[in-house]
């Protein structure tokens, strides 16, 4: 087997950091395949159960990688490197992807590229059909992370702000649960909120007066819990739509307030959204308005590139340091820092 030169052909990428089993083949900025197998198994638990996620990953990883190669029409002989999410994420889940990717790369003598999951979310913007070139400001919000990233080049980003407690998506899920909605809570909360008024209840937009760019959602969550307690079961039932609308507005309000503050430096000509929360309608509308007012470009990647996927890992891997065979045989995601 000829030794492929790194960067001279498509990348095979694997992502298993949470509850989606993903594999993709990406050539430069072009997505040849992007397979996402979402684990519906967690819905009945009201949240992602790490052991359930790991079990599903081991069942799905083989077929998902095969499908990604098939759909791309690319034989392994043409693959130039194997990239994988090495963190942050659920450790048992990460180990399934990392072990598979390492063995696959080893048995083919391919370079191996451990890749940061958050760099993946940012790098989703580099992919075709409309690659966004830095500099831009990127808000990544999902069930696992909330991050404001200043992207000046494709090689990485500066963390301008991050959450001090819950992730935005986590706060949405927990609020949805308090209102008796299923998991994941985002879409259900948004639907319910459409029938209510965002001004009905005064949930403080936490951190909006805090001068920094960090986020915090626990106060908003507690405010909802107290309000529900005070209203009692019947009161919550009667006011569910208003509660949903007001709660969602408080969370979205904080995200937008911090984005707005970060944009005041005037350094960023464009804004990008990533992560599952980027699918939220009111967030998209508010950020669109903000960008319009400021005359900035707004990049909204398709939903399958917002939520966890392997194409974004392939994209990020192209500016990460590949490990040549056999330097990665002992690679352990538990031992290595997420970001170098």
């Amino acid at each position: 087997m000829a030794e492929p030169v790194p960067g001279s052909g498509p990348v095979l990428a694997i992502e298993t950091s949470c509850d989606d089993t993903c594999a993709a083949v990406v050539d430069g900025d072009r997505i040849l395949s992007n397979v996402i197998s979402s684990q519906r198994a967690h819905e009945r638990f009201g949240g992602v159960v790490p052991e359930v996620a790991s079990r599903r990953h081991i069942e799905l990883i083989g077929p998902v990688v095969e499908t990604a190669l098939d759909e791309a029409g690319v034989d392994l002989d043409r693959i130039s490197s194997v990239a994988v999410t090495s963190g942050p994420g659920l450790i048992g889940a990460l180990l399934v992807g990392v072990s598979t990717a390492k063995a696959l790369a080893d048995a083919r003598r391919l370079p191996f590229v451990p890749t940061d999951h958050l760099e993946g979310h940012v790098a989703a913007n580099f992919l075709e059909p409309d690659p966004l070139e830095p500099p831009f400001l990127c808000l990544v919000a999902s069930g696992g992370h909330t991050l404001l990233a200043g992207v000046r080049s494709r090689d990485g980003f500066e963390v301008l702000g991050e959450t001090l407690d819950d992730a935005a998506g986590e706060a949405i899920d927990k609020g949805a649960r308090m209102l008796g909605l299923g998991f994941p809570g985002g879409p259900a909360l948004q639907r319910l909120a459409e029938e209510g008024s965002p001004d009905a209840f005064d949930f403080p937009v936490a951190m909006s007066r805090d001068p920094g760019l960090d986020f915090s959602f626990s106060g908003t969550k507690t405010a909802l819990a107290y309000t529900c307690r005070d209203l009692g079961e019947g009161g919550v039932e009667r006011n569910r739509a208003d509660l949903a609308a007001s709660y969602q507005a408080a969370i979205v309000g904080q995200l937008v307030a911090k984005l707005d503050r970060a944009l005041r430096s005037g350094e960023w000509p464009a804004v990008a959204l990533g992560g599952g929360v980027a699918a939220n309608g009111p967030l998209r509308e508010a950020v669109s308005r903000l960008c319009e007012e400021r005359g900035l470009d707004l990049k909204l990647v398709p939903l399958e590139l917002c939520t966890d996927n392997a194409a974004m890992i392939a994209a990020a891997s192209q500016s990460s340091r590949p490990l040549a065979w056999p330097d990665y045989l002992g690679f352990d995601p538990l031992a290595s820092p997420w970001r170098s």
Partner: protein
Amino acid sequence: MTAIIGFDTATEETVVAAMVGGESTFEFRSGPVEGDRPAHSSELLTAVEQAVDSVGGWERVGRVVTGVGPGTYTGLRVAIATAIGIALARTTEVAGIPTLDVMARSIHIARGGEGDGPAIAVPALDARRGELFFAAYDPGGSELHPASVGSPEALAEAVSQLGGSALVAGPGAIRFRSELEALGLELAGVDDPANHLLGSAICELGNQEDRNGQGPLEPIYLRAPDAERWNRERRDVV
């Protein structure tokens, strides 16, 4: 002659071996220092490459066999995912084999092989929460009691049903030493090699063309994940 590579990470140890024509060419075993977490992810693939080297390269490897548990969940998935990666990369045959089958074979080999070993081998692994994974086999490797999870008392009960002299060995026999001894069971000594998985036993069993146990790369858990148990119990109450 095609070579066989075998490995297992269902116990705290990383076990890897290679065999060509029934002759062992490589054997690796490494366990964590007391109190440390297992190093499966950092050790396994390096040892697999050494095993492949010992037989003259991947082109010579005709079959890869991995233990599929039961065992510690995170650990056993490292070996299975590694086998899946190899299966994706090469046309080599890749199969799974129950870890307790391998443990039983290891007990017989450690105890002098055919004839000299115990009449019944009872491999026992630590299943946490005060329980063991165990099974029972005759000297020919046929299963007398299926893979189970249960308390030391449940193991003793299963052994008493079988009759004949039985030897309990493995990491579970060390972990539950006092409990099992108090139940009157015969145990391998703490330093007895019978307590450890032999890589050569994986290769040996993996080499048998007609084995029933040799199958897909699917983990044997023997337990539902915690949340599932909790959900079921809650549903039972409602």
